[in-house]
């Protein structure tokens, strides 16, 4: 049976007094991605007690942020694995705002005159980062559970452990001569993981075969 993976729904925070929120919504709809968009007219609403705790992405216009842009960027700048990908929309002539953005790797800047293509790119990026974080957590949780189980097994505290399916993995790269597999075996192992990932995401074998760029028959044969 095919199951879609359990993933958190991305939340986009938009701080703007214009139509940025609508543009983000249109992009998400065109991608078929279910996401929540939370619109705010000022930075203080975001940083206030009832504001969001985190987000998959933040899109802010300098016109709405004003002098509080710095505080908002501080809100996004967290531990490396929790930073909020951020897009600041302003005028290239706004040197004060540009200075606040400089040196912050997770923050992108676009000029108001070229919003369309770059906003699209940013939304793609933020969704992928959100998915990556979700899968990363799932892999780490699975690894921790397996480690605990095998150590209990080692000390005979349990007789057996039944591992759950978990998200698909590619083969680890060898770190010593002894670990090298033949190219054929390693590639086959990788492809099995890739096929599982596609089936998991697509929800049906037909959609998975289209995503993988192979025929339904070929997918069926490979899965067997």
């Amino acid at each position, binding site marked *: 049976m095919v199951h879609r993976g359990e993933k958190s729904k991305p939340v986009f925070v938009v701080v703007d007094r214009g139509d940025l929120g609508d543009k983000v919504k249109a992009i998400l709809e065109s991608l078929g991605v279910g996401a929540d968009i939370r619109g705010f007219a000022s930075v203080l609403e975001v940083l206030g007690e009832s504001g969001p705790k985190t987000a998959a992405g933040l899109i802010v216009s300098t016109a709405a942020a004003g002098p509080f842009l710095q505080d908002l960027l501080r809100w996004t700048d967290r531990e490396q694995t929790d930073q909020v990908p951020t897009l600041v929309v302003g005028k290239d002539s706004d040197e004060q705002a540009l200075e606040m953005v400089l040196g912050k790797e997770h923050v992108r800047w676009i000029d108001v005159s070229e919003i369309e293509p770059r906003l699209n790119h940013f939304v793609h990026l933020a969704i992928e980062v959100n998915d990556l974080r979700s899968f990363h957590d799932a892999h780490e949780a699975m690894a921790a559970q*397996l480690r605990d189980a095998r150590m209990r097994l*080692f000390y005979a505290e349990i007789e*057996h452990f039944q591992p759950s399916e978990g998200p698909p993995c590619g083969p680890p790269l060898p770190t010593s001569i002894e670990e090298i597999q033949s190219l054929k075996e390693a590639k086959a192992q990788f492809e099995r993981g890739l096929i599982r990932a*596609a089936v998991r995401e697509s929800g049906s074998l037909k959609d998975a075969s289209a995503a993988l760029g192979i025929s339904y028959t070929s997918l069926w044969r490979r899965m067997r």
Partner: protein
Amino acid sequence: MTALLISEVENALKLQGLSAEGFVGLLDADFIRPLVGSIVGPDRVIDLKTVDAAVRAARSSANYVFVMGAKTASQVAAGLGADANSIVAMIAVGGDGPPASSLRAMGVMSVLVDATEAALKPLLARGLEFRALRALELAHRCEARRIHRREMELVGHPPETMTDDLNTHQPPPLPVGPISAYNLEEVSEAFERAYIDRVQHLCDSAREAAQYLDVSAATLARRLRKEGNGVNGA
């Protein structure tokens, strides 16, 4: 040997593309060979010959459980260092080495006093399952690391802060979410490039790399030309 693994573990290994084949590495324990062979089949018993060979086997990705003389088991445990008990399950046999409590403290999983099938078989099964769970754990950790790397790249952190211990190209993680590329040919080629690159770093020459990869030198050279890679150490 696979019959010693419960079906749930065997299926989990297969699902992740990992081998469910297991082996018993024997060192300094010839007297127990017939018994081990009768449990797992003679073709699954591997003579390790030296302590170094055992340490290498323990660090390899193959599914091993070790049966060793007590004294040798203590030497292998010392060779594996402080984390011996997190790497491989060792079963010590015979009474010529340190006491059982010391062996356990060194990382030996079990000390077999009664060399019978009834006593040995569950220990082999436990050791093999331990190793299988370790293989699954490593697969998840490596995937998590590749995912983290991709995340950092996307967020905008410079690549020099993300190099791995061997400082070689890492393959992309498996695709996640609706935005990723899933094209089999494209993504598999990226993996193949990374795999060949890593093997080249581990080998002294292109010829040796080809041998380990089980492809001809001409095939490897052709693939490298296609990818525009140089040949490390050739």
